[in-house]
């Protein structure tokens, strides 16, 4: 074979070879085709584990109830039993170690999420007790008169 054919052929082969070699190092060993076939599951398998180990921040009522039973007991017998502690108190994370104190959202805005009156006929929102925010003691925090843990205003 003549060299003008031979030489570029070697160059091409070297390029292809080095790409294949580089691929061995760049592509993770667990990268491949899994359960759903090439179209839907062609990926790096260990990424599933990485997502599964993502940190849980909202720990649910069950996490709060043992230490804060004095707050937990009244709320579970009230209409606010459907609301998670963390909805107002913020995610528990590793409380009480980290953070030692949670920041409570006592803002008017928080209560108005449900209790701003919206007369929507085909939604549960229309059936919730609500106020007109501009008329009902504007500028005051709801918790000055209402106890969010005992919303029926008993003993208040």
């Amino acid at each position: 074979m003549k060299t003008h054919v031979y030489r570029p052929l070697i160059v091409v082969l070297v390029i292809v070879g080095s790409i294949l070699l580089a691929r061995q190092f760049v592509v993770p060993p667990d990268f491949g085709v899994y359960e759903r076939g090439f179209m839907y599951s062609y990926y790096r398998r260990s990424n599933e584990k990485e997502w599964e180990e993502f940190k849980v921040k909202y720990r649910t009522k069950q996490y709060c109830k043992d230490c804060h039973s004095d707050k937990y007991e009244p709320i579970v017998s009230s209409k606010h039993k459907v609301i998670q502690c963390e909805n107002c108190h913020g995610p528990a994370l590793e409380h009480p170690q980290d953070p030692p104190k949670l920041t409570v959202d006592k803002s008017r805005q928080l209560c108005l999420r449900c209790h701003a009156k919206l007369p929507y006929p085909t939604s549960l929102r229309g059936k919730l007790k609500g106020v007109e925010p501009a008329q009902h003691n504007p500028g005051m925090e709801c918790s000055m008169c209402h106890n969010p843990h005992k919303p029926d205003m008993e003993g208040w």
Partner: protein
Amino acid sequence: MKFTRRDFLKTALSGTIASVLPLGGLRILKPGEVRAEIEKTNVRWGFLVDTYKCVGCGFCVKACKLENEVPYDAPVTRTWIERYVILKDGRVFADTPMGGRDGFVSLKVRETEIKPADIAKAFFVPKLCNQCEKPPCVQVCPVGATYQRADGVVLVDRSWCIGCGYCIMACPYGVRFFHPVYRTAEKCTFCIHRLVKGMKTACVQACPFGARQVGNLKDLNDPITKVILNERVAVLKDEYGTKPQVYYLGLDKNVR
């Protein structure tokens, strides 16, 4: 040649077996298929949204953002709530201020004052990733950075995503977005880190009224599977053929 009764029975029996034996039984499986058979999962996560129960409080959006480290004040979110107000004269108003993160506290929809007497129907529709059975966002990924788990959840590999944005364009539900910090495609993970620990997703947990529910669609005794099988449910954009697995009770034709 003598053809005995024994020969006849033998021939008839082997002929029957040969014709009954399906050719599929002799198929050679690909390595992936073999693995799939061995590790076969009996879990398929699905979601049920009851739009009658949703009050638009936005606790789900808040919880999702904090749980999944989605920048709180950036105009991106993995889940959001849409409000639809349909007037008696047929006009439709819809909005989702900050994805409904801070709830809906005013009758105003996009600066339009609406009189309560004019409302024919009004409701809230929570939205999130549909974890489609045939996810178009996964099909278009040129590098294999997004994939569907055996339990149906579609995830993004942040270390592998090149940020080309094809998947964001491909999703008919507008669920994907760029994560402002990681600069990769981002989407709802169905809180897979919570589901594998036996917990509910952050949004389901935060919902006070049970408007959002998550469950295993392969378990016939799962409360949400029962509802999906027995009640009148709908999915979003069925005509796209993506086979979404988030089912809605009380969906309206104005919801897209």
